[in-house]
């Protein structure tokens, strides 16, 4: 094969790879059964950095803000021990997760969930079929960070009691 034939082959292979890549993204998303342990988090504050570093926007420090975001319909995620985030799309048969009280009930808790895992375009999505265990809230980081943001804990709290 001469140099021009080789170059042509490389170009054709590259073009094929590109189009194959496109066609793969067109394929249906396949699911895999999983068991995931992680903390229920507010994805917006964690990913955007709007309230500060990641260590401050999880756990007790961020609990109230996480409730605000969940009530606001911002997707809730499970942050596992490897730092992977799974966007929760369904919780125990309830698909109304954009307005779910049940998901607010477990906000900031470390749960073990069984369900179906979908990956598309780099994002992990989770259909939670069952929450098989909860360790409750385990990250008491308000001891280090206070409330994040500060106005998520009332000023003059004691005088209002």
């Amino acid at each position, binding site marked *: 094969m001469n140099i021009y034939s080789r170059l042509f082959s490389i170009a054709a292979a590259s073009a094929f790879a590109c189009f194959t890549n496109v066609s793969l993204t067109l394929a249906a998303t396949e699911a895999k059964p999983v068991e995931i342990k992680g903390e229920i988090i507010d994805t917006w504050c964690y990913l955007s950095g709007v309230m500060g570093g990641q260590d401050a926007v999880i756990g007790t420090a961020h609990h109230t803000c996480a409730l605000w975001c969940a009530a606001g319909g*911002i997707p809730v995620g499970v942050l596992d021990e490897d730092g992977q985030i799974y966007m929760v799309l369904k919780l125990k048969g309830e698909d109304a997760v954009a307005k779910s009280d049940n998901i607010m009930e477990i906000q900031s808790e470390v749960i073990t969930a069984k369900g179906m895992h979908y990956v598309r375009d780099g994002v992990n999505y989770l259909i939670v079929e069952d929450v098989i265990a909860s360790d409750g809230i385990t990250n008491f980081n308000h001891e280090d960070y206070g409330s994040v943001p500060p106005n998520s804990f009332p000023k003059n709290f004691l005088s209002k009691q």
Partner: protein
Amino acid sequence: MSILKKITFASTSFLAGIAFSTSVSLAEDFSAGSKAKEFGLEEEVKSTFSAKVVDLLCELTGDCADNCGDGNRHMGLVRDADNKLITVLKNGQFSFNGPVEDLLPYCNKKVDVDGLMIGDPEEFGTQFYMVQLIKEEGAADWNKANKWTKAWAKQNPEAKGKGPWFRRDPRVIKQIEANGYFGLGHEADVKYAKENQ
């Protein structure tokens, strides 16, 4: 180099160029022409593109609901340019508002959107979207993606009052009354206040 070889080389280079540019276009830059406001967020990039509005559950699993779940399900965008499913986390408002109320009127329709891609792609493998402006594909005028708070007020007439919605929201109030501001109960709140206020 003979004329035949020159033609062959030029053709080969052209094909290689197409392949490379296709690959690069999949890595994408959709910032041209964006009028999105900057927020100073993690790795934020202005991004305007055409897309189809989808119910995420339906798109991923085939479990579809009428009208994309009527506001109860999370929604996303399938971008025309590369068929990439974009997870939309936020609308253009400042106070903890998701995107569903702004996307819902366009369920399964083609739209143009403008906003910000955010998040560290090296850490998370992708970025996520904050939609600030939306319109039906090809329409002249943009609509601000700021419907959430008005929709909340309509759905929660009993919560009418002064102050931001999230301090009056019955669902938030219920959780805080039950578990406190840190989720650890009322005593933990009292202890924190005594030590810090």
